[in-house]
């Protein structure tokens, strides 16, 4: 074999100065400690989309909590039919609805409805989804079979259709809580599925096995090791479900099985304005814009959070 070696292939040794040896496996930990959450925060902090969506969300929350800060005009009881579908006037910057009510005031006062439904549904979906998903994924066996089939059943009915049926039956009792329940009770399986899949992945990790070998109890392992490491995708889906819930409420109100017309709601207003689309499109468009911007801010936040928490999504940027 050595005879095969050509003259320019003789034994070459690089000068040591060129490639000084570094200690094997040297510890390089500088600066602040980092983990998934600190990394995610550092990532999110640098993105304009995060700040835009957060600012919008903060604004929406303030409007919902303190509508009085933004308008002194009462949304309902100051309506005059003489103003029907009227354009902007002094003190009424966006004009009037068909009933002659102040559009701006109605938009401001409708905010809390949308936001409340969004939040209640999201909490409900998160609680149900996390409980079902965590138990099904972590304990497996018959618990998984029962819970997963149950999820399949709820998942097989599109949640807006289910809410239509529920609200048809409970139309007499329609309020923010009932409509939230009607939406949330069928919306949780998606969250449960995502968490279950994530838990199935995490629970086979060696650190879970190591904890078991230590004698840490099953439930404590779930809470300490498994859940914290599988919750990230749930946070993403939860942010987006808040947006979906707001849309769902508006859709139900639009279909006439949502909140009673006495409740201030963007969906109700859009629904009421549809007959005059030809003559007074602004009456329909303005609350639609409010609705869409609110939804958009949560969708954008969800997108940013996904990019920060999902390593795959980060690679996609």
């Amino acid at each position, binding site marked *: 074999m050595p005879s095969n070696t050509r003259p320019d292939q003789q034994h070459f040794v690089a000068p040591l100065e060129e490639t000084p040896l570094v200690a094997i496996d040297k510890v390089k930990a500088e600066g602040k400690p980092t983990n998934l959450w600190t990394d995610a925060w550092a990532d999110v902090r640098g993105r304009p989309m995060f700040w835009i969506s957060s600012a919008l969300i903060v604004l929406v929350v303030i409007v919902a909590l303190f509508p009085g800060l933004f308008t002194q005009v009462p949304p309902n009881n100051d309506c005059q039919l003489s103003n029907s579908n009227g354009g902007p006037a002094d003190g009424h910057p966006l004009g009037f609805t068909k009933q002659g009510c102040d559009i701006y005031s109605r938009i401001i006062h409708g905010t809390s409805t949308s936001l409340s439904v969004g939040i209640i549904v999201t909490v409900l979906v998160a609680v149900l989804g996390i409980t079902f998903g965590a138990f099904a994924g972590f304990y497996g066996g018959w618990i998984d079979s029962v819970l997963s089939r149950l999820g399949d059943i709820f998942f097989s009915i599109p949640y807006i259709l289910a809410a239509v049926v529920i609200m048809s039956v409970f139309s007499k009792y329609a309020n923010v809580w009932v409509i939230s329940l009607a939406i949330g009770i069928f919306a949780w399986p998606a969250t449960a599925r995502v968490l279950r899949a994530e838990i199935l992945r995490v629970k086979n990790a060696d650190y879970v096995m190591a904890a078991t*070998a230590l004698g840490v109890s099953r439930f404590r392992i779930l809470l300490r090791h498994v859940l914290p490491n599988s919750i990230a995708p749930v946070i993403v889906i939860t942010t987006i479900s808040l947006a979906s819930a707001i849309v769902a409420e508006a859709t139900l109100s639009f279909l006439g099985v949502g909140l009673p017309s006495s409740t201030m709601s963007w969906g109700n207003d859009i629904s009421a304005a549809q007959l005059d689309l030809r003559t007074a499109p602004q009456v329909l468009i303005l609350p639609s814009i409010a609705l869409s911007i609110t939804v958009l801010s949560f969708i954008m936040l969800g997108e940013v959070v996904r990019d920060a928490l999902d390593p795959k999504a980060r690679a996609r940027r």
Partner: protein
Amino acid sequence: MTDTTKATESAVRRDGSERPILEIKNLEVGFNTQNGLVKAVDGVNITLYRGQSLAIVGESGSGKSTTAHAIINLLPGTGQVTGGQILLDGQDLTKASKKEMEVVRGRKIGFVPQDPMSNLNPVWSIGFQVEEAIKANGIATGRKEIKKRAIEVLKQAGLQDADRRLKQFPHQFSGGMRQRVLIGMGLAADPQLLIADEPTSALDVTVQRVILDHLESLTRELGTTLLFITHDLGLAAERAEQLVVMYKGRVVESGPSVEILQNPQHPYTQRLVAAAPSLASRRIQATGSIAAAEAAMQSDAETAAGDEIDLLATAEARAELLAAAESAPPAITVEHLTKVYKIRGAGDFTAVDDVSFQIPKGTTMALVGESGSGKSTVAKMLLKLEDATSGKIVVGGQDLASVTGKQLFDLRSRMQPVFQDPYGSLNPLRNIGNTISEPLSTHGVGDRASRRERVFELLDQVSLPRTLVGRYPNELSGGQRQRIAIARALALKPEIVVLDEAVSALDVLVQAQILRLLADLQGELGLTYLFITHDLAVVRVIADHVSVMQRGRIVEAATTDEVFENPRQQYTQDLLAAIPGANIELGA
């Protein structure tokens, strides 16, 4: 230029001297990152002549794969060649257009990738993927001809029933078979140069050997020049006449393999030679027994000089220990252990079949076997992470089957595991301090302050700085994570540590370091190890007794020296022969 066959006049330079088929001059490759351009390859020179075989050796991150990918211009992500030349038969590939590169790939340079599991498209049949390569390179035309060539290529690669399996999909093939398909694809267009990037690292050793033998004879037969990339120095030296050792993006040493192995000059190469388990076990073999290892070390003083990680030293230190431990009572007794899994629709699967062994206190027993041999299942049953179907495990006088509740909880503190995957062994959301002290808090040992003290002590024991307590696993390397895992395992001062492929995923130097650490800890703390591994070479360095497992059964059990010097079973002999570098004359 389009139709160059192998022995053409272009192999000669204008001045009459022989022209290398591949000449890499001062190659620089950089990756664009947030912190600017990071150089992964920095001034690499490689010269390769027709019919030769050359291996690039290095650890992960040394730039060896990047160099290979640069040659065929398929650098991942933001990678780009930032300087130098890659001359293939005189044509500078760094300046080649997209179209020109397409001609080069497949037809002039074949490529065999690393992981057989991910390199075949799961949705297309094997035949489709081979035929596509043949068609793209214009090797054959017409449906029938192409199919004929595909069968020929696959048969050549060692797939005897190729005509029958053409319609099958990748997931219906075993890892070894897929690797044969990939080799077949790489050679489909009869290229002049074949680049093989760690072609067998993902396979079991015995399969690895068969595939490498086949690749070697095939390239020799076809007259293909071979460039292959590996992390295993023993393997490189055994399979290639020329060696290029890379470190941190640079070539530190190159030349004829045997010469480099026998007389490594650069300190880094010396480190590698000293740390390679395959070579260490070979050297122990060459000198007769472990007891003679010290002598070998001294005669080999140049190699070992200033080197804290020589595996021979590790083996030697352990040899002394063994003499003292020989008469100790067993720490673990396993009798007729069996585990049967019920598989839906497929009947029973016996993962562990009537396994019996004893491990004397303070010694190491290695359980060796290939994937699917049942060795990890034994570990899980021992740790009571799974229940045995039948048989008995006695630990410290207690029958595992009968312990429950509080007794089991106490028993767990005496027996701790370290697992394989350094990236999965630590909870990424808990800091190092909390990870190491979890055993203490779980078992209610001491108060907050004393636990903190113990964490520091453990960090010292595994030679990591105390400042790591507030850090998270993602900031540590694989080797450092395994140290943390060891520290966690030692926190409760156990008597037994179960090491399930604990060093298998690590680079050789780091692996050698951890092996040394394990040996030292055993001496210091009187630990009993059950060392589970697929790598027989490592066993030589660390274990006192070896049990070889095959398909759930122990086929051979003896002291390490006996197994290495006088293997009784064919299977053990095959495993030994498959240790890369087993055929190298080290000249010691």
